[in-house]
């Protein structure tokens, strides 16, 4: 199964995602340039972290107009797996593929640290290899990662079991400690923490691998 890692101008975790998938997961991965309107024959898409188009205006706000995002929308509509990490999550939210918004951290500062996350649901192609309630250690590194949505949306996310990961010690003020969510069809996930930075012991944690393993398992079933 082939993973496609989208490269926007300003993406800076693209190499890391590629490395995590191709070396630590052991599946083929390729880069997809932001001007492509064709994703080729990839089986899953990763929108990596970084500062797409400089993140001027608002994080992810410019990326949503890129040719590649039109293709990603079609890919998602056809049921393809899309994982948005950090800036990728912000892009998914701006693009309307996921609900809510990511606003500045509660402390108004960029935070880089190792955090603990609780797996809220294992019923997703991104966490099927984890167990509900399992604690995962992964880093965060963002300035605008405070998840925000109106109560109705938050209730809906909870009722539909679409909150995938929750912070144990909320670092950024995210409502209801939300760190990662799914779309209604459960094939698009966005999260602020960086699973690709936790895929081998030398990185300080291998817990992030479970996300990629789950994706690989889901693809293998297709």
């Amino acid at each position: 199964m082939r993973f496609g890692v989208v490269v926007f101008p300003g993406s800076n975790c693209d190499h890391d995602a590629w490395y995590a998938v191709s070396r630590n997961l052991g599946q083929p991965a390729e880069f997809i340039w932001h001007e492509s309107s064709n994703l080729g024959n990839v089986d899953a898409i990763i929108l990596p972290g970084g500062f797409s188009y400089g993140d001027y205006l608002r994080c992810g706000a410019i990326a949503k107009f890129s040719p590649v995002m039109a293709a990603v929308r079609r890919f998602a509509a056809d049921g393809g797996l899309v994982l948005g990490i950090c800036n990728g999550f912000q892009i998914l939210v701006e693009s309307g593929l996921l609900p809510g918004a990511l606003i500045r951290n509660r402390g108004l500062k960029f935070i880089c640290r190792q955090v603990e996350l609780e797996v809220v649901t294992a019923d997703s192609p991104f966490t099927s290899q984890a167990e509900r309630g399992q604690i995962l250690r992964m880093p965060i590194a963002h300035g605008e990662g405070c998840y925000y949505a109106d109560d109705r949306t938050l209730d809906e996310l909870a009722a539909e079991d679409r909150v995938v990961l929750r912070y144990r010690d909320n670092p950024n003020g995210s409502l209801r400690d939300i760190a990662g969510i799914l779309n209604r069809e459960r094939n698009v996930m966005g999260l602020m923490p960086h699973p690709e930075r936790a895929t081998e012991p030398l990185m300080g944690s291998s817990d992030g691998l479970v996300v990629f393993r789950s994706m690989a398992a889901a693809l293998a079933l297709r």
Partner: protein
Amino acid sequence: MSTITPDLISAHQLTEEEYQRIVALLGREPTYTELGIFSVMWSEHCSYKSSRVHLKKLPTRGPYVIQGPGENAGVIDIGGGWALAFKIESHNHPSFIEPFQGAATGVGGILRDIFTMGARPVAVLDSLRFGPLEDPHTGARNRRILAGVVSGIAHYGNCFGVPTVGGECVFEAGYSGNPLVNVLALGVCRKDQIFYARAAGVGNPVLYVGAKTGRDGIHGASMASAEFTEESRQKRPNVQVGDPFLEKLLLEACLEAMETGAIVAIQDMGAAGLTCSTCEMGSRGGTGIEIDLEHVPQREAGMTPYEIMLSESQERMLLVAAKGREQEVVRVFRKWGLDAVTIGQVTADGMLRVKDHGRVVAEIPNRALADEAPVYERPYTRPLRKYPMEGPGFRSHDLEADLKALLASGDVCSKRWIWEQYDYMVRTNTVEGPGGDAAILRIKETDISVAVALDGNGRYCALSPREGARLAVAECCRNVSTVGALPVAATNCLNFGNPERPEIMGQLVEAIEGMGEACRFFETPITGGNVSLYNETLGEAIDPTPVIGVVGLVKTGPPLTVDFKRPGRAVILLGGFGECDATRFGSTQYAKVVLQQIWGLPPALDMEYEKRVQAAMREIAAAGLAESAHDVSDGGLAVALAESSFGPAGVGAAVELDSGLREEFLLFHEGPSRIVVSTEQPEAVEAVARRHGVEARRIGTTVEGRIRIAQRGRVLIECAVEPLRRLWDGALERMLGA
């Protein structure tokens, strides 16, 4: 054009003698544009005219060195066909005037130096100095400068996508009006694909790539070569504005363009912008360069040749392409949405010829600018010394309270508040990040990791520049060795006051000599660096602050870290208790924080012994004998033990010190050549130490949650770890009122 008047000459910070030298070199009066060009190239910042004769005393060669000083960055061989480019730069003056942009563009500038060599930046470290945060008069401004500098570094590094993995941050009154921001960057490239800034091939096109030129930063280099006065803060327009996103594009475009094989030479436009890049590339290559400013992409209308040549707009590069292949280069830059235009060509006549719409506005021999800048043998005397030799009589009433005061002091406390704002993990190479003795980055393409540390001690140097500089090198090498890496090369940043004052010049000379001596001894040649002089405000110079960055090599593996991991392990003080007397104690953090006085001399250093301790440490690390290792430095043994206890395991230590040293000295003296090691195999550690001829004192064992320090049966300090840790961890936030 305007006539050159004495006022105009002095406004360009050139002396009358320097002006006469210009006239002699040209054989005529310079034009206004030429005067501007000379003034920046002959500024202290670009020409090193006060330090050059002394910098020659530094060792620059060694078995690992591929490229020493003189290029955009130094390069060393790290094995497996790969090389490491690295260099440190100061951005002190801009950071005082505009902390956020000053620091941000400091990061941007040094990153360009690295990827200009063809190396992808893999890490940044910062050495920062500010005035005291709680000073009733200057505290508010110092806090503002610190916050601005930190967010500037974070903004640039995080967006660019380079991890900021370590450094140091020190507070001293002398830096209130003159903070120091020194940035060290490292990058990795293939050993056979290093790019140099040597213009070659007559007729080859000269391309301008990257951001457009604006009016920002004009005369930045000259500003950085003058003392601060009341008017300095009005120089804000001299500070450049950084755009890390653009630099990220420039990085990717440059590396991709280099792959085409069509690039002959490349240099970034840093200080003195287009002026410096053109004449230095020409001078290094022994060629001439002719450009027409008409083709330079401009952000503002109506810029004069003078302004275009002197602008320090960021995120720009100058490159020489192979004739006929420029389209290959242009295509790559277009892909990344960047300007790339041919603005001139390489010539055979050795001249920098600048045209504006075909009309010659400057015509200067390249060598006159780059190599024939004045070199001064400035007079020097004994170094300025502000502190007495003798200190007060004192006796501690509460050693535990003293330890707490030290742990909560600016220099010793945790800098987490700072480094958590930096993305220190991006690129997933950070094996050991901030907070350790040295940062470790694995090089994915090999089985080698690079360890890097950054050290300086202005207080030691204020008491003895020579000894202080030697101690900085020794500590930096010790830090690298403590994580198990072999120190192989260094880069330095020399921050001093006004060299025209003989007692300041004396500090500079002694520090360079001390640094040279130590770098020779520890076999860490200096491959490049930076000199920042005129760090004075209203006639008050900073403490002499030579900063050194040392890189070492170690086999990639789990890192050896500072913190105790498990209770019941033996605690060994490698190197022994060391020596101290009342004079040497005057340079310690204890003297500064607890007694609030500084006197005497820095700690005594025995370089032979230090080298043996480091070798023993590396062997202990390589054999996997140690569970933790932390060098003893600021705050002495008590602080080292406390810091070793502040890990996630919450494991402290109970130690019994069999030493006749006075208790304050025993706990808090800062004698070098000592490392606290915890181990499950004390006999094996002791055997290694014996073989290297160094002491290994088994001083106690690790215990759950407590710190207990006794001297020959008498308990000096006994307390729980957690309250100490909280004090240490939260001190900076409290001082900032954050």
